């Protein structure tokens, strides 16, 4: 996850899963806090739902990985890289369950 293009791929994979569901007003355009805010507001998504929480956490984790303030070899960096993959699977389960 320490490569720029890999992080884009991770974001793409999460968005593809979320947007498998046909949202009433707008697709989710990105995993920045502001893009998530817009998507939740447009589609009237409750911020306390498990799906909303998972997407928010995934966005924060990817943002952390992109922010080079942390050494990329730290344990926390490795932990968050693995967390993104786990979050993607959790989001997929939430989306499948909500059909």
């Amino acid at each position, binding site marked *: 996850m320490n490569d*720029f*293009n890999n992080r*884009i*791929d991770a*974001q*793409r994979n999460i*968005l*593809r899963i979320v*947007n*498998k569901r046909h949202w009433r007003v*707008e*697709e*989710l*355009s*990105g995993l*920045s*806090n*502001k*893009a*998530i*805010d*817009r*998507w939740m507001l447009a589609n009237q998504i409750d911020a306390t739902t498990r799906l909303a929480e998972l997407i928010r956490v995934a966005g924060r984790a990817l*943002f*952390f990985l992109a*922010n*080079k*303030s*942390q*050494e990329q070899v730290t344990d926390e960096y490795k932990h968050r890289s693995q967390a993104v993959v786990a979050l993607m699977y959790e989001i997929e389960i939430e989306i499948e369950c909500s059909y």
Partner: protein
Amino acid sequence: MMAHIYAFGSVCRGEVTPESDVDLLAVTQGIDQRFNSDLYSVYSYARLAEIWSEGSPFAWHLSLESRLLYSPDNSDFLRELGVPAAYTSAARDCQKFFALFAGSANALRARTNSPVFELSTIFLAVRNFATCYSLGTGLPDFSRHSALRLGANSLVFSSDVFGVLERARLLCTRGVGAMISQDETASVTLALGEIEGWMRTLLITVASHERFQ
């Protein structure tokens, strides 16, 4: 805890539009909870010294386009780092951004369910490709429109299509602007071949430029 704060990017070039934000850099001694990572790019002193010695595009960007806003002791950390090491990876970086473009182009042609994200990624790939190319060939341009400012090597492109890409980037990062329509997505998809041709030409140019350095 010690920290230096800088502004960088468009505001330092005097390029201010209703859409532009102010890029802020915080240089810290480690994790510093005072800085909201939504507002600041946060780098440690050690990491910045490292990217300076790597001669990365970001080091050159900060070296050429940053202004000190706050220093705890009147020192200017970035200026004291001196000139970054020579940038020697333009061809490799351009190839990386070409791959990024190709991934999004394929997704759009396959009618992805996340077109705004892919359009935004194309904007990012085109911009970064052009910036790395410009830096590698000695005339650095870090602006959002770097691809349109490469002289004879500029991307010749419909301004409407470029505007769609730019809007997608704002939607993806800042969550603002009018949503992209299906027709707009289709117009960009039709123009992907032009971008690809431009990138392929510049990949050859930048590789030969590096060979003769």
